[in-house]
């Protein structure tokens, strides 16, 4: 019935791979992503070198451009850091968008209604705390149901996004509306704006400090240990006497609080006001940053800068070469696909017919 033939392609699990080879494979996938992007530009009738050149010069060519790129990277990094403990715990928080917005709402409340009662040095910390608290609470709702009844958190956190953004739309057109009929919330007073260092609001310092803190938190603290154990096996965590539900809620609250803080940075540092798309997709893109960095906070710095470059560069691309800016989402997607795919080559070996493989060490 069958001729004597071995299968064309077979797979086998690999043993442990050296870190050097592992990063070489990841690097190669990066190059593959750039090449696929180049093909895309070719299809659109643009010279890929020119397009990539435009992206780089548009985002890093001038001091003002660099500032704007950093401004884009800051919320991305902050949110990716926030998501890291959730993902380590295998809790799929895709509600960062809503948590950022919730934080932005709370911060805006103080900026709009307390600016004349509190002085700058008090107002800003109050806004930050309020933002963190609100972001945390927004994240806590789905976490509570997850911990209690195992409710699907992926979709619940996502629904929270639409709910929170809906609330902002209502505030915009209703209670907080500036000029009647404008659908716009007024700009914050000066005292509610984050100070600047090197011409960029101090959000960048906040997130860099957070990077170090998050690294320590995940690697060296008891909380970090608990998170890793739960991510690996909830059963083992229970066996070790951990209160799984409480730890889930605590971790997700912290995650949401950092998102809320990012929301505060966005309204108080970058925008100076609140609108429905304040988060602007950061909550989703940060998921990819987090994953590409393999949950390593320091790697997140690099990757969020890279995506910042892509994002800002895509804007320049739109003005100079009339390529819609959504190209940056497509390229981000391509990067992510390539990085996800490359893990396969780290974990498996491919054996082609006719090739006898030597026993691996």
């Amino acid at each position, binding site marked *: 019935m069958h001729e004597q033939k071995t299968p064309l392609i077979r*797979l*086998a*699990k690999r043993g442990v791979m050296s870190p050097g080879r592992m990063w070489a494979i990841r690097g190669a996938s990066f190059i593959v992503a750039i090449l696929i992007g180049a093909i895309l530009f070719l299809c*659109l009738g643009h010279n890929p070198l020119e397009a990539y050149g435009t992206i780089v010069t548009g985002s890093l060519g001038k001091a003002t451009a660099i500032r704007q790129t950093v401004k884009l990277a800051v919320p991305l990094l902050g949110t990716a850091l926030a998501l890291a403990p959730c993902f380590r715990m295998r809790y*799929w928080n*895709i509600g960062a968008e809503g948590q950022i917005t919730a934080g932005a709402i709370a911060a805006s409340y103080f900026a709009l209604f307390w600016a004349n009662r509190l002085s700058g040095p008090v107002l800003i910390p109050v806004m930050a705390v309020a933002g963190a608290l609100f972001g945390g609470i927004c994240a806590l709702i*789905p976490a509570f*149901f997850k911990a209690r*009844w*195992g*409710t*699907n958190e*992926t*979709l*619940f956190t*996502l*629904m*929270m996004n*639409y*709910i929170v953004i*809906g*609330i902002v*739309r*209502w505030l915009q*057109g*209703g209670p907080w509306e500036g000029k009647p009929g404008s659908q716009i919330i007024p700009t914050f007073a000066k005292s509610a704006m984050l100070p600047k260092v090197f011409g960029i609001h101090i959000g960048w310092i906040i997130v860099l400090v957070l990077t170090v803190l998050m690294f320590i938190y995940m690697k060296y603290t008891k909380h970090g240990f608990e998170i890793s154990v739960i991510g690996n096996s909830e059963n083992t965590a229970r066996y070790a006497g951990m209160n799984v539900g409480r730890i889930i809620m605590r971790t997700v609250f912290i995650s949401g609080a950092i998102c809320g803080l990012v929301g505060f940075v966005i309204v108080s540092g970058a925008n100076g006001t609140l609108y429905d798309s304040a988060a602007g997709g950061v909550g*989703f*893109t940060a*998921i*990819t940053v987090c*994953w590409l960095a393999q949950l390593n906070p320091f790697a997140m710095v690099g990757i969020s800068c890279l995506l910042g470059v892509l994002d800002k560069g895509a804007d320049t691309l739109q003005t100079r070469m*009339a390529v*819609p800016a*959504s*190209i*940056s*989402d*497509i390229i*981000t*997607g*391509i990067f*992510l*696909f390539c990085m*996800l*795919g490359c*893990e*396969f080559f780290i*974990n*498996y070996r491919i054996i082609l017919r006719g090739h006898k493989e030597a026993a691996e060490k």
Partner: protein
Amino acid sequence: MNAVILLIYNAVLNGTPLLFGTVGEVLTQKSGNMNLGVEGMMYMGGAVGLGAAFYYEKMAGAAASGPVAVILALIFAFLAGAVGALIYSFLTISLRANQNVTGLALAIFGTGAGQFIGEYMRTREGGYVAISNALKTAFQSSPFPKALQSVPVVGQLLFSYNIFVYIGFIIAIVMAVFFMRTRKGLNLRAVGESPATADAAGINITRYKYLATVIGGGISAIGGMVYIMTIAGCVWNHEGLAGEGWLAVALVIFCLWNPLNAIWGSTLFGALMILYMRLHLPIPDQLYKILPYIVTAIVLVVVSLRKKRENEPPASLGLAYFREDR
């Protein structure tokens, strides 16, 4: 009475994109693949479907025929979603990547690609992409004769929808029969429940997973096209489309992986989406509009509270399979 009929009528119309999205994802999930990229695939389907109808009319000019435009839009929307699902399948089935993250990546990629195509067409075609009224009629009016539509009550309730409503119903019913009454359906369910069992029974897991996911993605994507061509009035409107795909994923849980439940489930959600226009309550419209999302959240909680053997998701949902795993 009239208001109720109108509400049902509009609920069905507004629920149809969701119906496609949900039924496609049910097929995908039955094979054990949790594809969270429905949002992305619906965007791609919407943009490509619109593009297919638009460019067809541009080429055919006055000779453009409505039914051909509908068929082309269906085919291209399906293909767009299938391509997205193919990327997902390759990564998760062949390369065994994490399904959640791959799905999210597809959502980002797909929404980007959909918007890109929508924008690109707009800028190239001088700022406006729309099809002629003659063609719009083919997309938006009922395939049944006028006489049948004007039968009181029954006419509007049963015969006055656009063609996609009926296609959606047929797909849902056919799929339910496929799952419960055919060998291939049994095999597919086994793949989703326990790939190791299906494999040992000689079922080609890879083929079933690929086919279910790619066809499911294509069906989901048609939902995006239906939204653009019926509700959004044949112009690219990414604001309106936003969130449909995610609601569809939630609806899969709501309808307990049964395509027949998706029919009334999508209608219910269609009703929730337009309720603010039909039933006036003393709350601001903007808050009224988040009702479907709140209901979805509540539904998720209720589903998690009530656990029954037959209502569980496919047992291996979200897990990669490698035969030689030890």
